[in-house]
């Protein structure tokens, strides 16, 4: 039972997606939700199988986003392929922004630490600097 549930996507997520796309008055049976779980897993296997076959033929070891877009088009999900390409670009842009922000925050942390060390040597009581400590801790914790 546990293995089967781990093989499938969470039924709550599946049910939520179905409810959001269907009219509010529509009802979905439990059997239908369970069927959708199975279909989603089969869809994932189907698409990634096709993408990995393509990589094998081209002697590549890693499946990338472009292979998935190609597989969707090859399997008849052309509408999805176009939208997925757009999502891929947005995802990559978001990842780049996130990496840039992480680098910026890391550089700020290192600068603040240097300032604190110099101020600590001069002033044992640091009522003014403590807020920056807390900010550092918050930022570090967020990493």
């Amino acid at each position, binding site marked *: 039972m546990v293995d089967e549930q781990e093989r499938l996507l969470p039924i709550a997520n599946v049910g939520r997606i179905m409810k959001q796309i269907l009219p509010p008055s529509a009802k*979905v049976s439990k059997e239908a939700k369970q069927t959708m779980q199975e279909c989603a897993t089969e869809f994932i296997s189907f698409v990634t199988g096709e993408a990995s076959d393509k990589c094998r033929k081209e002697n590549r070891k890693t499946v990338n986003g472009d292979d998935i877009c190609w597989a969707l088009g090859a399997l008849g999900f052309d509408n999805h392929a176009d939208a*997925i390409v757009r999502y891929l670009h947005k995802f990559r842009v978001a990842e780049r922004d996130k990496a840039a922000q992480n680098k910026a*925050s890391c550089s700020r942390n290192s600068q603040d630490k240097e300032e604190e060390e110099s101020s600590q040597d001069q002033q044992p009581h640091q009522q003014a600097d403590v807020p920056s400590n807390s900010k550092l801790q918050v930022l570090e914790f967020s990493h």
Partner: protein
Amino acid sequence: MASSSKKPKEENKKKEKSKTEKPEKKASTPQKSNKSKPKPDKSRKKSSNGTPGIPDPSSSTESNENKTQKNVKPNNKRKRKEKEEENGGGGGGGGEATVCRFPMNRIKRIIKSEDSSVAISQDVVFLVNKATEMFLEKFSEDGYKCSVKDRKKSLSYKHLATVAHERKRYDFLSDYVPQKIKAEDALKEMNSTETGKG
């Protein structure tokens, strides 16, 4: 017995220390009290079904600062509602595009079970997540149209099976969503095939 009597004294001492420390800190360090606060937020974030997507660092730091002035619990509830709204909203801006509906780890596990030898990049997990979401939406829509034709208020297995067999796009699901037939008909088919072979 003696040990039990000691403990409350120690606790009282700690409380007294904390009381003495608090007024000093309040004036200068209103944000130190947040040490413990961010933790429950993260644990609650992880407990959500789907992945939180890519959070904005600017918004997270601002929310942490605001916690000093407000209580923690209502902020967590607001964040949950905001997340639900983001997930529930249509294909809006960049934030909605990067939010994933399914757990990334589960998607990875399913992909690995299909083919463990091939390596997958992070893009792939995200795209498969999105593609699966779109597939489920489309399949649900088609199933619902079938249920409307059938004049039923609820979408049932029968409607999904009908859609899977009628449309070529869903041929790969024909073995997973077989149409239900009566046992009598199934036995008749089996007998006819056996007599045909014999």
